[in-house]
């Protein structure tokens, strides 16, 4: 046992003890956050996404306080009202309030995107980490599985799944994630392979750490930045996929509102009721753009050399 009395005998050069940097402790995460904060456009995009998310969460409140309509309330006397007046953003062919439906649609669209990202990241990380860490036959088996998943034409899979299961937000998220995890797994495996080569992994093995500790305490934190970037870029992609599926009638089914299926209906009324197309389209566009901008900002914040 190393006792304090022994240490006093050690004649340590004072300068070696006191000479370190005087800056406050700064973790990698702190520094990345500082860099992210300095990126104004990136931060604006992030805040915009946050606002949309808040609106989606608080949809019932908005319904009650702001618009005074429910998303599925049909009022056949008020079909195709233009924006303004009682209906701030107009109504659709069944007299439903567009703004209310957009707010509730945000719940569905953003919810599906978030759930999809969560599921594909979890599954993809687990598979990628196992494959990269253990290597050998496990790596071969898992990566051939990933190849197979990535080789399936996604759109046909979606059509098939939509026919087999009537898509709810949860089942739709699982359907999209069933393809999405493959790319995450590849990404994570690549990162793990490079981190695994570094000496600190060997050093951690040399003190007798178990595999689980190596993976969770050392590999995961070092892979995390890549995952966060993948997640923020992924949100945009998934919103687009989901909107496309909804538009084709393979996604969320009416009367549940989503940004995508609001477009489906609007298509027929494009010429006389353009607001039905404009508003959901604009929201999708802005959200996807914000998600990509924010994703790139995060990537730059984590790795300033990439700039």
């Amino acid at each position, binding site marked *: 046992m190393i006792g304090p009395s022994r240490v006093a005998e*050690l004649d*340590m050069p004072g300068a070696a*003890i006191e000479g370190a940097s005087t800056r406050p402790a700064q973790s*990698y995460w702190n520094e990345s956050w500082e860099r992210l904060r300095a990126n104004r456009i990136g931060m604006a995009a992030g805040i915009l996404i946050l606002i949309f998310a808040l609106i989606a969460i608080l949809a019932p409140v908005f319904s009650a306080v702001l618009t005074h309509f429910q998303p599925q309330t049909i009022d056949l006397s008020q079909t195709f009202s233009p924006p303004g007046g009682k209906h701030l953003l107009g109504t659709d062919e069944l007299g439903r309030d567009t703004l209310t439906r957009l707010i509730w649609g945000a719940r569905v669209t953003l919810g599906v995107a978030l759930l999809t990202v969560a599921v594909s990241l979890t599954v993809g990380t687990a598979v990628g980490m196992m494959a990269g860490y253990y290597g050998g036959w496990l790596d071969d088996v898992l990566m051939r599985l990933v190849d197979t998943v990535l080789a399936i034409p996604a759109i046909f899979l979606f059509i098939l799944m939509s026919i087999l299961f009537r898509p709810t937000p949860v089942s739709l998220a699982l359907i999209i994630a069933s393809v999405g995890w493959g790319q995450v797994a590849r990404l994570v495996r690549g990162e793990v392979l490079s981190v695994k080569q570094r*000496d600190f992994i060997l050093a951690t*093995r040399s*003190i*007798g750490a178990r595999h689980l500790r190596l993976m969770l305490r050392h590999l995961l934190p070092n892979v995390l930045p890549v995952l966060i970037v993948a997640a923020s870029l992924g949100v945009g992609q998934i919103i687009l996929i989901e909107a496309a599926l909804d538009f084709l009638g393979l996604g969320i089914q009416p009367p549940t509102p989503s940004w995508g299926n609001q477009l489906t209906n609007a298509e027929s009324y494009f010429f006389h009721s353009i607001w039905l197309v404009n508003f959901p389209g604009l929201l999708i566009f802005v959200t996807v753009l914000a998600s990509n901008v924010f994703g790139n900002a995060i990537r730059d914040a984590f790795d300033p050399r990439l700039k």
Partner: protein
Amino acid sequence: MSSRGPLSTAAIKPLSRAWTTADPLLEVSDLKVWFSVSSGVLQRTVGHVHAVDGVDLEIKTGETVGLVGESGCGKSTLGRAVIRLLEPTGGKVFFKGYDITHLRGERLRGLRREMAMIFQDPYASLDPRQTVGDIVGEPIDVHHLAKGKERQDRIQELLRVVGLNPRFVDRYPHEFSGGQRQRIGIARALAVEPSFIVCDEPISALDVSIQAQIINLLERLQSKFNLTYLFIAHDLSVVKHISNRIAVMYLGKIMEIAGGSQLYRRPRHPYTASLLSAIPIPDPVIEMRRERTILQGDVASPINPPSGCRFRTRCPRAREHCAEEVPPLESFGDEHRAACFYPLD
């Protein structure tokens, strides 16, 4: 250091007789570590890198054995194999009389409390996402050595022992210079209270003015905690300073082993002699006068090592016989052994 030990309780097959502290702490016999080389689409094994190819070595308790050689001679591989970060392909490794050659699972984890390693690159060997406290505390957690306040105290103690300010526990590695990082790495190695430490080029990545600090620290720690070192380096001057005995490796084999000054004053193996003559001495007067034996050519491939003596392709004294037979390590008296058919006087 207390005589606790997962090793003594683990049912590892001991040598026929009981081990005492007078016996070598570490005994390596005919150790081989080969790596397979594969090629082609099917990744078929086409050959082996004979990284370590039949090494015998004994290390006594409390001594420092230096291991020198050029890159690719297998010195790092040997270091990793004796503390079982690699599994040997052949031969035996005995530690405190126990056969540890093929230990696995919990027994291998138990062994990790007896042995530690200090790495060359103080940048790559510390996890950038962990604080100094996490890094030094990890061995304590892994082996459940202490908890809570006691754990904190241990970490601070270890930092003080290696000459770092204990207030730095919440700092991250990138805030430290190379020398300080190496101290963090040393604190981590000490955390398991090992009796044997493999130092793999611990100073070659450091600034010249910092190297002496780390060498002195390692020496102080050795006498404080009765440590035994295997000190791996390519710089023979550093090895000679810190080691009791020096082993010279070439292409996976030990060419010569002797006490430091004996090896310097009277090298028997031509490789040792040319290695010594190649090392620049920081003294212009001596350097100008020095006779140099400059070796021709490069080290041969460890995939297809030369027949007979491995050094013969570069050896100025090589004769026909050297290609036919592998020279054994023969004694030249007083712990001095060399593997050469035509040794120097």
